[in-house]
């Protein structure tokens, strides 16, 4: 490739990157501005000084605890969905549990529009006393993510050569040991990629959280909407809260990018 072509490629790449990163930059930068700076015209492209006041307010008022709620709810439901879903996927992949159709039926559950079931679930939760509890929302997210986990892990497990498991069985493993010592290491990239996506689904979930929580376990996605008022919107709080809510996912993806890419592309190179 000539130097000229390479130069223009870089230019194009940088332009595209700037275009897509700008909204995120804007979100971050607003969170460090004073209210005056937020509304100034022409807009200030960068703040005169970094101002942490918006964050301080969130922590002082206790709003920041909603990020913790999201972390607990998304984290625990991800762990549960991964454990249950992977075992279920193993059973379907290896023992043909449920025959040909069970796997298809399971993934079809993922296609149910959440809005169609949110009110029946709400009424049920009222009866069971699960509204606005960790358990309630964790159970729901786990159930909602299970089909995805089962579907993805079934594919990864089917790709593990059966002879590897049989060899381990002959060599002295129990079925549980086979799963732990052979299937998990073989599916490591797939497990991590699936876990990250599951976590992100739960982290970003809004509808169920809006309907099923009140004050105790409000997640950050719901909290952000509290700053949209009839008279005015609290842009400073909205942006600061959004940054707090974005950071954990940013960090998780940054650390696990390698597995994420491998996990996604694993299915693509199947022979």
């Amino acid at each position: 490739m000539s130097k000229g072509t390479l130069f223009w490629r870089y230019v194009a790449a940088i332009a595209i990157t700037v275009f897509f990163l700008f909204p995120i930059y804007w979100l971050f930068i607003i969170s460090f501005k004073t209210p005056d700076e937020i509304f100034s015209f022409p807009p200030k492209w960068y703040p005169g000084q970094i101002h942490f006041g918006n964050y301080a307010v969130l922590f002082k008022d206790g709003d920041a605890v909603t990020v913790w709620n999201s972390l607990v709810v998304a984290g625990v439901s991800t762990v549960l969905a991964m454990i249950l879903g992977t075992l279920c996927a193993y059973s379907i992949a290896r023992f043909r549990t449920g025959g040909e159709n069970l796997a298809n039926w399971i993934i079809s559950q993922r296609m149910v529009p959440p809005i169609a079931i949110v009110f029946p679930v709400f009424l049920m939760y009222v009866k069971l006393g699960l509204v606005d509890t960790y358990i309630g929302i964790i159970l729901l997210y786990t159930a909602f993510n299970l089909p995805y986990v089962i579907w993805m892990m079934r594919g990864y497990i089917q790709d593990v050569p059966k002879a590897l498991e049989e060899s381990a069985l002959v060599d002295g493993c129990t079925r549980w040991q086979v799963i732990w010592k052979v299937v998990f290491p073989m599916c490591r990239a797939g497990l991590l990629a699936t876990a990250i996506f599951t976590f992100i689904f739960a982290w970003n979930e809004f509808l169920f959280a809006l309907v099923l929580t009140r004050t105790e376990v409000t997640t950050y996605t719901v909290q952000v909407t509290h700053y949209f008022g009839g008279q005015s919107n609290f842009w400073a709080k909205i942006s600061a809260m959004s940054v707090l809510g974005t950071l954990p996912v940013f960090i998780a993806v940054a650390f696990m990018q390698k597995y994420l890419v491998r996990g996604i592309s694993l299915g693509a190179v199947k022979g």
Partner: protein
Amino acid sequence: MADLKLTQLHKHYGAVHAVRGVDLEIPAGEFTVLVGSSGCGKSTLLRTIAGLEQADQGSIEIAGQVVNDMPPRDRDIAMVFQNYALYPYMKVYDNIAFGLRVRKMPEADIAQKVKSAADMLAIGHLLDRYPRQMSGGQLQRVAIGRAIVRNARLYLFDEPLSNLDAQLRDEMRSEIKRLHQELGKTFIYVTHDQIEAMTLADRIVLLREGQIEQAGAPLDMFERPATQYVAGFLGSPPMNFVPARLVAQGGGYAVRLEDGAELALPPARVAKLAARADQPVTLGLRPEHMSRAEAALRPGLARYSSRVDLVQPTGSRTYATFKLGGVEAIAELDAHDVQRANERIELALDMNRAVLIEPSTHRVL
């Protein structure tokens, strides 16, 4: 006591009856090869012995104990798989040590066992590598290493050489045989390759459609096959089969081919055939039991003249295809016995070695 005893073993896969009532005893220390064409049930039989498949009927005894309901790990077996089945995320050392670690052997003992197995298989310098950094032959050595460190009672091999190229296969074949001699353990080896079966086995068990067609020492089976199937399966190129009729000739008997040629049978074979005079038989003759005829023939040889259709020199030997009693047959001749197609040659057929088969039952007479 037999190391392995199978009694009336049956295995179904859905509608397919893969193993149909197999009875087999394998004494300790024997190298048994289960051989047969694909789909004959040999791998299923091995996997059932290993406990990777459940037997539907019959019993499997290992060292006198019925193991039908025992998981593979308790059966005191080690197994080598066709595709090596090495764990790609473990180094060679850890692959070999895997079975010992699962069984909680102390690390010091493991190190010593892995080392001695690796030395035996000449893979000592590879212990630090991952499987993806190795060739097929090396991978199979590691897989064999993983089996032999286990010090099991039965060693099962499921077509271990079929993924290797021809030269490597010959090399590994002799190594497996040498290994068996050194270890003195019971080996059960599955293959579809009759050369592997002949060269490796103390005893060949030839399977056909889920049943044992014949079992015996390799040369016994080669020289005294019980059925036409066995006769045709062992040997390469395979035995020629020619429809014929048994006729009285002089004081003895001969087989008359469809082209009218009569091949006299040696007197030693006549006694058993008297009752079958004038009945159809199938004549079986191995390619290597034909040669270019000399002016005077030894007793037991029969002269046959034919035109050669095809000549295939292999270097040391030459295969000549010709019509024998109207049927295409192959003779294995000395390299220079026949030069080109369409040549007329006089062949000496060794009737001492010929087999006569009852055409309706396909059993050797």
